């Protein structure tokens, strides 16, 4: 009856299934590998730029971690080790595309062009996200897991329905894929054929919980199949591969061919946040093994071998990175409290009478204290 035919089913399955091995262009030692068909290497200029952003990104990340020790940030979730993913996510998007990041994606935001201080606004203890999401087309970094993924579908639908060409990219972690909202987002996007890319950074841990306790799927990329969403897996520490696969994904979505799910196999080198103690749940040896897969080293070797990157380039990038860090330190060292009375200003467009009363009350308290 209305059941799909076996032939059609086999064909449609082939459309959804990811590669059997993660897509890879560059081996861990930096030597080239043959990628599967359908993927092109990004051009050298883009790779050069990616390298630069990765160097800046990593410096930003270590600086932010350092700032937590000085109490300048309330908390910081580092993405060290995930730079290939972070940078690629930003670089494959156009200005009119949208990014829906999580708390761990600060480096992607910096790469997208958000002022680093604004990126850290929430984490330094303000109640708002710092930047103007509408202006730069980056949603506020999202903490409630997987909730942002549905927003990305909504934004993709908004763009599609307005006849715009934009694509929305939703970032999510391996753990986040367990949440119901992830499922609802994939299903909606598939049914509406929304121009959205779901980019899973599988960094192997959700705080302390390892992937094996999070999912029994062969790989997370297989999560697309049950929705009819085209899926792919990629070596998340190979910047060339991540750029290549995400480019295909974004083009697929932009061409109106529906959503695309990408799983990047990567690793969270640091603890979950500065407040976490990763030795309680994982071996130092495991972390060491992943050090050999460092995405910066890998790209450096690869680009040097192709003579796209010189010692001078590297020197220049490092120096830019130091400037970024110095600037960040300087600007973050200015203590910032915020005006308590502003707390009432953005609850509604117009404060309710009750909020006006409460504001007046707080103002009166301050006046009394000053007296």
């Amino acid at each position: 009856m209305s059941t799909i035919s076996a032939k059609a089913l086999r064909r449609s399955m082939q459309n959804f299934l990811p590669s059997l091995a993660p897509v890879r262009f560059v081996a861990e030692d930096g030597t080239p590998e043959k990628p599967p068909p359908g993927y092109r290497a990004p051009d050298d200029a883009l790779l050069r730029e990616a390298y630069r952003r990765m160097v800046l990104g990593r410096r930003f990340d270590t600086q932010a971690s350092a700032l937590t020790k000085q109490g300048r940030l309330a908390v910081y979730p580092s993405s060290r080790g995930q730079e290939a993913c972070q940078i690629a996510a930003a670089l494959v998007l156009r200005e009119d595309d949208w990014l829906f990041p999580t708390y761990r994606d600060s480096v992607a935001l910096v790469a997208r062009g958000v002022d680093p201080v604004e990126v850290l606004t929430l984490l330094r203890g303000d109640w708002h996200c710092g930047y103007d999401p509408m202006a730069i087309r980056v949603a506020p970094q999202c903490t409630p897991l997987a909730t942002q993924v549905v927003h990305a579908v909504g934004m993709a639908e908004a763009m599609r329905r307005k006849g715009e060409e934009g694509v929305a990219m939703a970032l999510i972690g391996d753990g986040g894929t367990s949440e119901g909202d992830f499922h609802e987002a994939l299903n909606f996007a598939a049914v509406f054929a929304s121009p959205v890319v779901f980019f899973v950074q599988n960094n192997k841990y959700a705080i302390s919980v390892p992937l094996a306790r999070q999912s029994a799927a062969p790989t997370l990329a297989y999560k697309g199949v049950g929705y009819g969403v085209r899926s792919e897996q990629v070596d998340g520490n190979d910047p060339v591969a991540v750029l290549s696969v995400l480019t295909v994904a974004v083009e697929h979505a932009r061409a109106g061919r529906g959503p695309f799910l990408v799983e990047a196999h990567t690793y969270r080198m640091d603890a979950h946040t500065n407040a976490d103690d990763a030795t309680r749940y994982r071996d130092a040896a495991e972390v060491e093994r992943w050090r050999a897969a460092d995405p910066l080293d890998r790209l450096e070797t690869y680009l040097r071998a192709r003579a796209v990157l010189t010692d001078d380039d590297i020197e220049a990038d490092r120096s830019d990175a130091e400037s970024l860090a110095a600037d960040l330190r300087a600007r973050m060292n200015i203590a910032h409290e915020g005006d308590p009375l502003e707390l009432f200003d953005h609850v509604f467009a117009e404060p309710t009478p009750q909020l006006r009363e409460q504001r007046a009350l707080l103002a009166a308290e301050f006046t009394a204290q000053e007296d």
Partner: protein
Amino acid sequence: MATVTMAQALNTALRDALTADERVLVFGEDVGPLGGVFRITDGLTRDFGEQRCFDTPLAEAGIVGLAVGMAMGGFRPVVEMQFDAFAYPAFEQIASHVAKSRNRTRGRVSLPMVIRIPYAGGIGGVEHHCDSSEAYYAHTPGLKVVTPATVEDAYWLLRDAIDDPDPVVFLEPKKLYWSKQDTDFATRHAPPFGRAIVRREGSDATLVTYGPSVPVALEAAEVAARDGRGLEVVDLRTLVPFDDETVAASVRRTGRCVVIQEAQGFAGVGAEIAARVQERCFHSLAAPVLRVAGFDIPYPPPKLEHAHLPGVDRVLDAVDRLQFDDVPDVRHLIVGAA
């Protein structure tokens, strides 16, 4: 002027909003060809097309989350939750995003959207179909919460809600869907959004209520009038923002107050009203503010609704008790939510 049901008024409001503002979109479960389980969206897909009114897969968090993204993208989504208890899967999206977006972006990402929820009981519905969930939303800062009690208010408050720059939880009293009024929507008689209205004047006591309990209060006032007692009836219309002025002015005048709600009493909106009234009008009060509310039990089955719902008798009973001393006697306590 024509005789219009509340269901028709809501349908007309959606039509007029879809016509007036091309950013308005309607979506949810079964709102397309079926026209919604209560037919509030009847004919919208036919008349405005799939693009403006469409069905989604079954997933309430998905529906609200989709609306968040679409509102960020410039649309004004009006989403329907099929029934009160079926909005609970969306609670995280509502509490952590819908309510907070403006604030956490310092005003840059506002989310003008309306979440329509048929709510409350009185229609013989089975479990999960009769919850009065207004307190969950009213307690969440950043949400406006509205519930109409008349056909005209249904139309105008929904129009206001759609035009509002903030997210609005729009609670439609199911049992009033088929209530009727002679009206047209050419000229507005309804007071502004955010203002309560005195539906009936009286000088002996004030009944403060909203949504499905407004007709109950009016009927109680009618009965009381025959006994020579003048009850003033205040219909709140919007729970957030709350119109302290109208409520307090009335209670200061009458000196007595009974709050009526269908929802279970404990920590409900009625508790807030009672607390506010005594805070503001303490020295005008001749008696404690009493509450007539649903019991603190899961909503009962069709055949026992009558025992649960605050009805005219219970309201009049509470009025009768408005001037006693405070001996700890059971007759003394709030009716229904002691």
